[in-house]
């Protein structure tokens, strides 16, 4: 890759930084002032906007990680590995946010911090799977082997996580389906009014842009780390 693009922060990235900051401010306004108070749940329902959006972002980045893994196995080039790691790290952060906000919401809605609902369990297992991914990478020194194993593990994860969901769904689900039809057994579901829908869409947009910005930063960091490694090899010959 062109090394000059690494030395200075690209214009577009700077613009994205500012854009995501503005969007996040906008999100805070939308969530706390524009969106109406939900009648049954009250204030705590506002956490839903961040919860749903971070869940969405997690799925997107982790799917990208699996795709980057597939591409790496077909065409082994460092950049796909750097992208995959960036995706998994960011995905882990948002998965934590999703589970934590969900727990905050579940306390008043389901009267418990934790429940063995398929989605809740699947998301937590997903966190464990990708923590294992990071551990696997840490344990391998050879960069090419590390990239190969990472790619394979990310693909396997993308296959088993949905299966985990289906295997646990044989139990009765408690999680509300807010968008689309609600299931009869779901607890704490609510109908969204127009302003709520707008707020959700805005939050989704803001978090998506923010995530892409983060992703770009992380990929750049990966490249710089790589470059440092190369220079060190050249200087010390090891």
């Amino acid at each position, binding site marked *: 890759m062109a090394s000059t693009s690494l030395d200075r922060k690209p214009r577009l990235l700077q613009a994205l930084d500012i854009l995501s900051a503005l969007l996040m401010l906008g999100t805070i306004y939308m969530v706390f002032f524009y969106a109406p108070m939900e009648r049954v749940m009250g204030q705590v329902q506002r956490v839903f906007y961040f919860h749903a959006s971070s869940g969405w972002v997690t799925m997107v980045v982790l799917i990208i990680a699996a795709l980057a893994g597939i591409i790496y*196995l077909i065409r082994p080039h460092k950049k796909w590995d750097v992208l995959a790691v960036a995706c998994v790290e960011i995905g882990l952060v948002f998965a934590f946010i999703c589970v934590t906000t969900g727990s905050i919401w579940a306390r008043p809605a389901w009267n418990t911090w934790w429940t063995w609902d398929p989605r809740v369990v699947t998301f937590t*297992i997903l966190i*464990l*799977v990708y923590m*294992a991914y990071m*551990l*696997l990478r840490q*344990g*391998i*020194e050879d960069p090419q*082997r590390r990239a*190969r*194993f990472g*790619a*394979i*593990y990310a*693909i*396997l*994860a993308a*296959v*088993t996580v949905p*299966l*985990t969901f*289906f*295997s*646990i769904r*044989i139990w009765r689900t408690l999680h509300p389906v807010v968008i689309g039809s609600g299931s009869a057994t779901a607890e704490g579901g609510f109908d969204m009014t127009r302003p709520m829908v707008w707020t959700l869409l805005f939050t989704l947009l803001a978090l998506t842009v923010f995530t892409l910005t983060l992703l770009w930063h992380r990929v750049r960091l990966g490249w710089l780390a790589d470059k440092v490694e190369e220079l060190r090899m050249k200087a010390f010959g090891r």
Partner: protein
Amino acid sequence: MASYFAAVWAIVRKDLAAEWRSRQMVTAMLVFVVLVIFIFAFTLDIDMLTRRQIAAGVLWTTFAFAGILGLNRTLATEGERGSLDGLLLAPVERSAIYFGKTLANLFFMLVVEIFTLPLYALFYNMSLAQPGLWLVLLLGSWCFCSVGTLLAAMAAQARSRELLLPVLLLPMALPVLVASVRASSAFVNGLGMEYASASLNILVVYGLIMPALGFMFFDFIVEE
């Protein structure tokens, strides 16, 4: 095609012969299983009815951990003795090594299970002679070994291999364990096929996808 199966069979025979001579691993697995059953008996001081309800969970937990013991050895021993290089140099498809190893692991796990069932039935005074349960054991163990062998091959090349395998394997094998426990529980409690079929479907899907992925990826894992 015939030569491919011959290669798979050769690997299976080699692993079984090696194990038959030392009998180290299977013995360790069997002792481990008996110990776990005893520990469960002492830690879960329970009545007859509950015992029946949790039997499937206890059995599968035991099998999963015993399975990990075996999986950890399959490629680690090859690495220690340098025989992996010999295997890789052999003019056969690499995936044949994967299937051979998976089948050998499946065999060891089934030996442990066949040994455990009557013992468990004896200790806890319940009948486990149900063909449905045996089917679940076969299917679940196949799923567990197919993903386990693949991950063990990766873990064997990492720094902290014995430590790493459970962390890599258990979250990935969770659908297998959940589905196996549900299906086994249905048979142990005499509910039959009706209650087990949804879980069996998951096992079948997993048991087809995972070996297919292993077939594709094993080359990349043992590549030098």
